[in-house]
């Protein structure tokens, strides 16, 4: 199929970016979206132009590296699918496709479609862990965990840290990401001692990093490729209120 692509090009963080158009003549519908960009880049290099920079690694929807806004939607049109898992058979011959980076105050553009998401790591460092130094653990069966809790914890822990939630949110909030971690750990019995300090620390870091506040628009959950639901945000809010009241 033949496609027209309009891609955000920005040589460095300081430069002003712009949309640039490219035409690809012969795209296989079996190619993945990123393979389509590979083909474009091979063509650009052959023509002596600078190839388009984009983040990717596993190309199977688990590392969270890929991060494109496709036709206005983070990770594109297919639900529960990362950009790298999206295939060209979802598009039609003659389509015009817009490709942009995540846009959010806390995720500055590094180059073209690559953004800086280290703010997510800082949120984890501010409390998104259980303090369990190596070698101190009791036997794994010492504390059984009800299956439904373990399953719910897993569902929240399935977050891949891609940042689509932030890109989708009109406020650029990192609430869904943060709440998924708070929920995962909060469902584990061994993490109760740190529950209050965790949520206070993470929220403070989230706000300091320049993420916006949450106004319950729900865009984050619709964009999440791992289908993490809004219920995690309710959980975070409850934990936060309790912890803040106790700290006051």
């Amino acid at each position, binding site marked *: 199929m033949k496609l027209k692509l309009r891609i955000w090009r920005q*040589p460095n963080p300081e430069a002003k970016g712009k949309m640039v158009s490219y035409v690809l003549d012969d795209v*296989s*519908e*079996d*190619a993945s979206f990123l*393979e389509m960009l*590979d*083909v474009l880049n*091979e063509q650009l*290099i052959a023509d*002596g*132009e*600078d*190839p388009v920079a984009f983040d990717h*690694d*596993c*190309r*199977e*929807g*688990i*590392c*969270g*590296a890929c991060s494109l806004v496709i036709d206005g939607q983070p990770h594109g049109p*297919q639900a529960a699918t990362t950009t790298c*898992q999206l*295939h060209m*058979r979802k598009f039609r011959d003659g389509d015009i496709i817009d490709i942009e980076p995540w846009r959010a105050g806390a995720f500055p553009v*590094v*180059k073209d479609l*690559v953004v800086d998401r*280290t703010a997510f*790591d800082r949120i*984890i*460092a501010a409390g*998104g*862990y*259980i303090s*369990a*130094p*190596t*070698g*101190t*653990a009791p*036997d*794994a069966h010492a504390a*059984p*965990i*009800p*299956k439904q809790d*373990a*399953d719910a914890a*897993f569902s929240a*822990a*399935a977050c*891949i840290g891609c940042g689509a939630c932030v890109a989708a949110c009109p406020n650029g909030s990192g609430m869904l990401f943060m709440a998924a971690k708070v929920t*995962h*750990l909060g469902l*584990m019995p*061994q*993490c109760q001692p740190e529950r209050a300090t965790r949520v206070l620390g993470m929220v403070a870091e989230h706000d300091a990093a320049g993420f916006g506040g949450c106004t319950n628009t729900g865009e984050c959950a619709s964009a999440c490729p791992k289908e993490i639901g809004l219920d995690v945000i309710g959980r975070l809010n409850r934990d936060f209120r309790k912890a803040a009241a106790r700290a006051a």
Partner: protein
Amino acid sequence: MSANEYYTDGDPVADTKAPAGPISERWEQRRFSGRLVNPSNRRKLRVIVVGTGLAGASAAATLGELGYRVSNYCFQDSPRRAHSIAAQGGINAAKNYRNDGDSVHRLFYDTVKGGDFRSRESNVHRLAEVSTEIIDQCVAQGVPFAREYGGLLDNRSFGGAQVSRTFYARGQTGQQLLLGAYQALERQVAAGTVELHTRHEMLELVVVDGRARGIVVRDLVTGETTTEIADAVVLATGGYGNVFFLSTNAKGCNVTASWRAHRQGAYFANPCYTQIHPTCIPQSGDHQSKLTLMSESLRNDGRVWVPTERGDERAPGDIPEAERDYYLERRYPAFGNLVPRDIASRAAKAVCDEGRGVGPGGLGVYLDFADAIARLGEDAVKARYGNLFDMYERITGENPYERPMRIYPAVHYTMGGLWVDYDLQSNIPGLFVTGEANFSDHGANRLGASALMQGLSDGYFVLPNTISDYLADGPFEAVADDHEAVAAARASVNERVEFFLNNDGDRTVDSFHRELGKIMWEYCGMERTDEGLRKAIGLIRDLKDEFYERVKVPGTGAELNQQLEKAGRVADFFELGELMCIDALHRAESCGGHFRAESQTEDGEARRDDERFSYVAAWEFAGEAPVLHKEDLEFEYVKPTQRSYK
């Protein structure tokens, strides 16, 4: 006398660190005999850990907890994106929670046998011992393993094991284990013991007075190259499966860190041992950039077949039972569809070579769930494999509930890697290697769910203990930034970068990588021959020359330049590919993942040759003709037998 003209023989090499005595006491003994570092001295010692996968993040976090000063590097934008994140199936541990006869000794035995008697008994026993502590550690960190209704941990049997010793977190075990290690790592970052450097690539090892003392790294965003000096360097940089271009590895996986260390004198052991996984989604066209693994668990319920007649173009549903060949069930009645990975892979290749393959290019076989759906119902099949079926449909556009899946083998894991002793130290003092980057525990073939076990065993429990024996001699003398060795290492990095940017070429890096991958797959893949390997060495050398003449790298060195990153990695893959072929050529036996067509039984099964090849091949870099150092293997506890799955 070397067996061919491509290499020369050197002195044997020995692992001098493994204690003698009863095997179950060796690890205990080594921990006792190794020297310790006083807690107040640890603060004065810096350790560089390259890699944030299971092997790197666990080591960096644990060393930080112990009070060492740690610098941790990865090339991704976050440590959490290391390739370990993609592991699906599970992690083994000899917990015997099922009371089904498992034990440390049985895991040890299975791993030595599974490795086809090409690993060290001491190392493997330690791995089996430590396995149980790993599960405790991960649970304490909050890893949400699958549980039963009673709240206890669930286990499954994996890869044909007779006991259920595999712990898992849905189909995302690697992700959950890595997030546990990553969170422990971030905790140390907050505590100030670990400095994290993301989007940084190690491009050279700095060796001063015979000791590994630092690394040269390039900041992938600014392009700046800098040197960091430390008391010890740990490489946890993963495997080299991407030498084949197409593999199940993440796109960024590469051999550069290991290869640079190899060029500085570190031995590279058993490079030809690669694992080909039988159940991957076949290639769909020339645009293909990687291959996707479909979990091995599918073979528990799926039946593998091809048409009996070659060139049968009918849709699978139109081929009657009588005209289907369930070749695994036919050839291996005892194990059927559950034969080990290497056997299933080779059998698929054999039927495709006969012209009976299905799908594009005839490179595929069917994995059929029709019987399972009839027997268990579609819902039950969906409950077991729903995610995988969805993934298959996303990629191929075909519905596996209605039409059998098409699968084909793909490169998956590399057992070879930098040579290390029992302490995980390479032959360069101060250079330690953990995880898939070393060669240590899997011999010629790795069992399913054992790579995660090894990465975490190395990183949480082994290295933090053994490295103290080395660091007890530190802190080592300061090394100035203008020291001869430092300046030379940095100059070599800068020269290489300049070369690529200034080369007046006309071919892309990827086009070379693809071509190299094809050569490797054709001649150093599932089946290897003397003639083919010699041919491959010639082809690789020619292509390498062409690469340096014609490669074109756009852009500059002072910016994010993904083509430049790739160029350096592919340059190292060329040299590695050649060594893999030389190793495969010299090892004129079949063992584990290495199948030499000349060494097979009458009915086409692998024939190992213990008389001639019961050793580790540790290669020393010496330009064109590497030097072979042999480490003899001894088996006191598990007597070598030929594998049989008939």
